[in-house]
């Protein structure tokens, strides 16, 4: 799993709310769930450590106005990286 180059990920800001997972599932299906998401939050309740990972099904929200995981990540743990030449 790797992080798409368009996205800037800062796990330290993540609150483990999983909005990104639900928004991602929505992108793939136009439905709500947490089975078809490309982004995955793994939270460890004993330490509050967590990981944010993307699997190969991520298409960086092709067809959406902007990546939905970043749009709905209020704490800013996933953001769209402003890279010259990116869409």
């Amino acid at each position: 799993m790797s992080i798409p180059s368009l996205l800037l990920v800062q796990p330290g800001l993540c609150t483990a709310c999983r909005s990104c997972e639900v928004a991602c599932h929505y992108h793939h299906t136009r439905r709500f769930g947490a089975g078809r998401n490309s982004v995955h939050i793994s939270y460890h309740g004993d330490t509050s450590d967590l990981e944010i990972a993307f699997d190969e099904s991520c298409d960086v929200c092709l067809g959406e106005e902007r990546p939905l995981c970043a749009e709905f990540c209020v704490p800013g743990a996933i953001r769209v990286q402003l890279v010259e030449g990116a869409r």
Partner: protein
Amino acid sequence: MSDTIWAGRILWVDLTRREIRVEPTADYRSYAIGGRGIGQWILFREVAPGTDAYDPANVLTLGAGALVGTLAPASGRLSVDTKNPLTGGVCASNAGGHFAPELKYAGYDAVVIVGQSPVPVYLWIHDGQAELRDAQDLWGLDTWQTEAALRQRLGDPNVRVVAIGPAGENLVRGACLIADRARAAGRGGAGAVMGSKRLKAVAVRGTGELRPAEPEAFLQEVRRCNAKLLASQIIGAYRAGGGMRFAGAGGPDGTFPQAVRNYRDCYWPLEKSRRIYEPALKAGYEVRRLGCFNCPISCSHFYAVREGPYAGDAGEGFEINSARAFGSNLDIDYAPAIIAAHNYCSRMGLDVDMAGACLAFAFEAYERGDLSRAEANGLDLSWGNHQAALELLRAIVERRGVGDMLAEGVKRAAEALGRGSERYALHVKGADLNEASMRPMKAWALGIILSTHGGGHLDGAPGAWAWRGQEDLARELFGNPRPGAAGEYRNQARVVIWFENYKGLIDMLGLCYFTSMWLDALALTPDDYAALLSAGSGQAWSGAELMRRGQQLHNVQKAFNTLHAGHTRRDDRPPPRLEEPAQSGPFRGERLDPQRWEEMLDEYYQAQGWDLETGWQTAESLRALDLEEVSAKLQAYGRLK
């Protein structure tokens, strides 16, 4: 397959017969909507008056609201409804976390549990399947151990668990359910009911999905609602520091009214509150901020203690009520001890409010000489003694010595202890009380005392803070430009009723109260919630219709209390301690005047159309709400006016 945003099915589990069946949610959708609505309607119909809370015939429901599992903001709430072992009336408890959305993804909107298993069991729900499994080896584990054991056993770290700990197993009347290690369905003793049924946990995993009727319109409504929430200054303060910064340990400047030394006072000296308030905790202990499912606010904190006698203690969900219960109300200003007490309650499955009230009661009894050191398990229960507080908590969970008496809650403990201790037993309708600001804020106190589950601020209690600068809107909604204002007894009934109904609709949808006008008048209105429900369900809902459903729900719960607990007007009065004036600080001299309180009750009952003498509902008031079913049952038991 889901029924738009509803999973479409309700799971019924009979623990006595080990039978599992399903019924369609559609039978309830139009009037009960979801969450607390479905839970309370089932409770009202299924449990006969006279049934003890621990009787196998009591019903325990776990319900996900209609918007749970969608992208609607903070849409992860779980309603836990049952007969309340503390009050004999309703338990209507509510937890965040991730269990409720997982339940819907697994194919169920609610779980209804009846009966009693002969041996400990857990319920395993996964993608439309449900089965009871042996939990004898889990009995005795705390909630954190239980979650870890079930995830390992089921081979999936994404399994969500709601469990009881030793407090529920030992039938501590204030035992609660814990999900995700710190999300408590706290008030109302549902953990004890679950323990009486020998149901250790419910584990759930779902990979299914919900199908909004109008996906694009729904997403637009979510964007609009999120923008409103993020524009709010008050919600901004919550995002920055959680509820703790807003009102914990004296609030931002230390003067926010608290409960101090078993409510003798409502002001804690600044040098003490500033050891506990949010900036101090952030600097000393905060590791991460956290949020429940899909929450744009993320009010939760993960605190870790690194040195001193509580080094190694770490956990989440520390809130205002923990700071009060184990801080100001026990006069303990040592933050690590308060964090440790909070985490202990999460692990044991014990309601912080109940636990704190029991401790404060015992500390005062000890100070007065009504409880000797020998009777107090040899503990020195002097104000501020945190080691003794933690040890007494353990005694309550394990029902050792004086802990066995306190495990029944302060009302029953005072009856057992005698010696005049009833006058400082802080409870409402039998439910232990842990609230702030009740002396100066009259409408806030009214909303707390009238809460059908026995003393709680997350119902009809209006916060004055939400309405500053919004006088015109308040006048339009309530006929009162200053809802909840300090010192104001009059013209508050309509405000309290409005919030009772509003909270009902929010709990039916399964969203957090922090998205609402309870926190900020500029947050989500009934029409905003209706717009989300309309786009999700494909049926046109208005805010007014949802408010009416909320009012019906409140009346169902009120009727349950009348039928089951025999509550009358006398149960709508505050504990005597609050009639005594505050002793120091900005609110010195403030109290709840008994005469003025009666005037408030008159105004409230009149506005509800209820009987002034008994406080009971009337045939006319229930007819106006199309609640003939409720009316007929009250009539049959001779409790309708």
